[in-house]
């Protein structure tokens, strides 16, 4: 089998033009014990862009995104092999502080998970713990504004975050992530638990945020990837003769290409809904 391309062909017409790579990932494999979850994945993720990972359940896209900020470190018997370079630095080198990694590379999860505290304290928590300088009230306001939640939250900052709607809670989690001044935001199915209106707001937000941040998103919703992403990676599952399932990268290209003229038949079958 030929490996999917890592580098992207030069842009034609009005196509998306990739910027500098933020992540350069090569030959990345992750195993949980004896089970290889993903094998030999290599892609570049570009600055100020939205990169989407799509694929059927069990294709390893969540496992893959968790390598971007060493979240797999928290899973017992997970082993990561290969190269994850962030602005040229090996994220898995000894001496790299995972806490600092996760400050720069924030993450938002499928289910909004605010702390059972006030809206204000949810945002202020990270800056306080990290001892970030500057006016805390300013920081909270800026984070809420960037996450498009300020207008709805400004008069109830002392109220419990748990009183917010699901969509608001998810934007709060994004604001919490922004408050510690990250460079990259990872989102693992950020809208799959939200209603269509809230989903649209999150998608609009991604569009806004990519001006200042690099965004990586895992999504089950292919139309969401088509709408928000500049680059899309399609993952699939390979089943070995003894029944073991391993995630592989099938195709990585501009989103427009993936959804109009994908190079690989498996991608075509997936995006057109003929498989998975």
């Amino acid at each position, binding site marked *: 089998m030929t490996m999917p391309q890592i580098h992207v062909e030069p842009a034609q017409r009005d196509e998306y033009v990739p910027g500098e790579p933020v992540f350069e990932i090569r030959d990345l494999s992750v195993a949980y014990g004896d089970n290889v979850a993903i094998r030999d994945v290599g892609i570049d993720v570009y600055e100020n862009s939205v990169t989407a990972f799509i694929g059927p359940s069990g294709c390893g896209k969540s496992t893959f995104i968790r390598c971007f900020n060493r979240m797999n470190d928290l899973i017992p018997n997970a082993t990561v092999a290969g190269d994850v370079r962030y602005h040229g630095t090996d994220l898995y080198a000894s001496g790299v502080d995972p806490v600092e990694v996760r400050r720069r590379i924030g993450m938002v999860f499928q289910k909004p998970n605010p702390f059972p505290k006030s809206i204000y304290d949810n945002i202020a928590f990270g800056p306080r713990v990290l001892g970030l300088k500057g006016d805390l009230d300013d920081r909270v306001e800026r984070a809420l504004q960037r996450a498009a939640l300020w207008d709805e939250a400004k008069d109830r900052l002392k109220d419990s975050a748990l009183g917010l709607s699901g969509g608001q809670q998810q934007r709060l989690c994004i604001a919490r992530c922004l408050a510690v001044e990250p460079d990259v935001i990872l989102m693992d199915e950020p809208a799959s638990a939200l209603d269509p209106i809230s989903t649209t707001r999150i998608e609009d937000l991604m569009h806004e945020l990519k001006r200042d941040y690099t965004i990586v998103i895992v999504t089950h919703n*292919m*139309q969401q990837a*088509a709408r928000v992403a500049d680059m899309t990676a399609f993952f699939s599952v390979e089943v070995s003769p003894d029944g073991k399932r391993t995630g592989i990268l099938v195709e990585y290209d501009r989103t427009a290409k993936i*959804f*109009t*003229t*994908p190079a690989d038949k498996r991608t*075509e079958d997936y*995006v*057109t*809904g*003929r*498989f998975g």
Partner: protein
Amino acid sequence: MRISFQEELDQLEASLREEGELVLRSLRAAVEAVCTQDVELADEVIAFDDDVDEQYFKVAQGVELLLARQTPVASDLRLVLALLHDNLHLERMGDLCVTIAKLTKLTKGLPPDDALLEGFKEMGERAEQMIHVAISSLEERDQEAAESLLELDELIDRANRRVVKLLLDLGGDAEMREWGLRMILVSRCLERIGDHAVDVGEQTAYLVSGEFREFTDASH
């Protein structure tokens, strides 16, 4: 597998093929009417265009509904877009047949030229063949056959030029001249039908290859 979606796509393609069959019937009748100066048949061609238009709307509505409900992508999207374009090309062919029928009525009683009518028969047959190739190449997803339409178009263009030359040689008789002027338009209509068939072929090539390009750079 999205079963109902695939069925809708198949149904849409079948509707377009039906439209193609209607256009073929219209073309045969229009050419027959002009060659035999059959005004009644010309009226039938004009009335029959409502059937073509009805089929056109059916395909157009099907495309609209499919886009709204199924958000097709990749080759499905290309197929839907190709059907949208092809639908318009077929409808235009139908309109050109109506124009031929109207010109037939306008020239009733004027003296025809047999050599010219032979030329129209040839052009009509070539146009018919081109529509067949256009429709079957879409059905078979056959890019090579679609591209062969360009050569067939060259033949119909040549026939058109021969007809025009014959018309210029018709002489100075007033009635003959009027007939000739109208017949230049008939020749032009048949030639345009060939062009639309080439356009349908271009859509097939786009569907198969994912890349849109005109078969010729100059307008044909």
